């Protein structure tokens, strides 16, 4: 594992000089970021500013044009398909659309990653893992429901449960509270904090919900024009005199 700056804390993600463009549209331009173990880093930015592209580059879903990305000490550009799949078992990704497998039940959704990775061998172990993650998100009763029967908030919590079932070291949340009512959004924020505390995970949270930023962030990064425009704590951002930072808090 890498030892980086900030009092020699363990850096679980290091993004250096990352560039990505689609056609003429430059999305990321010399972007740098460090995430330390146990930290929740919220990436703020306007819609279309490249926040989702950033985390998709980090998990290897999108190939960057240049720059390097180290995740848990591994340079992901140097990993082959099998090595990348192995690394990904240590990562969790909560999609904005939840991305639940819609033709199978919630139980099957949760069992799917376990069975594919042969992480459990008996039905008791599977049942126990499924119960544990459903209990974490408070939806034990939904185990035999279909994804189409869930409300937006329930689907988000089930997607979080599926993310947690492999016990990831790093979780990526892509706009976890977007489209939810304020009460449900707060419940999701509480769950994010609860999971961090329980499993000691590090997270990158993409959001422009300022309540979510306030409640969950250890560090806030403002992504502007493809670069890391500013970074600091929520309070530092709140007190900033910079007009581009302030407009997110107005």
């Amino acid at each position: 594992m890498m030892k980086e700056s900030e009092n020699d804390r363990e850096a679980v993600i290091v993004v250096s000089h990352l560039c990505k463009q689609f056609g003429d549209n430059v999305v990321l331009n010399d972007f740098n970021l460090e995430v330390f173990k146990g930290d929740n880093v919220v990436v703020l930015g306007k819609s279309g500013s490249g926040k989702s592209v950033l985390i998709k580059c980090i998990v290897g879903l999108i190939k960057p044009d240049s720059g390097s990305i180290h995740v848990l000490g591994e340079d992901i550009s140097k990993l082959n398909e099998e090595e990348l799949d192995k690394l990904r078992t240590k990562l969790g990704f909560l999609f904005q659309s939840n991305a639940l497998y819609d033709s199978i039940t919630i139980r099957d959704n949760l069992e799917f990653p376990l069975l594919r990775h042969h992480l459990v061998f008996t039905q008791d172990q599977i049942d126990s893992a499924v119960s544990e993650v459903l209990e974490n998100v408070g939806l034990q009763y939904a185990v035999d429901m279909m994804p189409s029967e869930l409300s937006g908030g329930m689907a988000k919590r089930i997607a979080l449960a599926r993310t947690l079932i492999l016990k990831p070291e790093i979780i990526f949340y892509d706009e976890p509270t977007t489209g939810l009512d304020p009460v449900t959004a707060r419940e999701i924020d509480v769950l994010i904090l609860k999971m961090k505390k329980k499993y000691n995970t590090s997270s990158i949270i993409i959001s422009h919900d300022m309540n979510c930023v306030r409640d969950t962030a250890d560090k806030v990064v403002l992504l502007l024009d493809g670069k890391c425009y500013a970074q600091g704590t929520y309070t530092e951002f709140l007190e900033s005199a910079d007009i581009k930072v302030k407009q997110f808090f107005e």
Partner: protein
Amino acid sequence: MSIIKDNSQFFNETGNISRFTFRFFSTGLKPRFEFNEFLAQSYYIGYKSLPLVGLTGFIMGLVLTMQLRPSLLLYGVESQLPVMVGVAIVREIGPVITALIFAGKIGSSIGAELGSMKVTEQIDSMEVSGINPFKYLVSTRIVSTTLMLPILTILSDTISLFGAYIGVNINSVTSFNLFFTQIFQSLSFSDVLPAVIKTFFFGFAVGLVGCYKGFNSNKGTRGVGRAANSAVVLSSVLIFIIDLLAVQITGIMGLN
């Protein structure tokens, strides 16, 4: 400019399909093969297609017999009806019609299913949890279509011949034994084997194109519709191209 753009799109698409095919052979068949998913797909692709393939096969045999009869009567060779129908069904019509029905049912289904999974980020979700979606979704479906279509074709040919037997008996009386004896006496190994072998290629083409179109679908629900539609169109065209090549190859080998 439009012609240049169209040509460029054609070559891009051909290149992408070739890359997709190469990926299937280079990584898609490597262990660990998802055998349970392959069985589930084979059940759906093979067993669930049986009623449709059987019904169309039966009608095909019946109609072909009824259409051929007047022409043969005209030349006084009505007795050759079982031979003509048998050879036509086993060598050409059975495999091609079954493959086209199969492309319509299975090609569109695979294109729409994978396309829908792509646009709702379910394939990405599989990938980020360390599950190789190419192996799980694509390889299992391609292997399944490749193996199921020959079986369906053999069944469809058999049902077609029964349809033809009923067709013959509508206007005259021919015994079951005489009808099938005439057919089997006229068929040789070189009629059956190439016809069965080409169905493996038809099945591979249907699976490959369906998976390719679905796996690379974009632009929301319209993209899913396009994926399903173009999967059927392209695989149907490929079936005819493969058939043409098969006829040429068997001709060169002296099997025609």
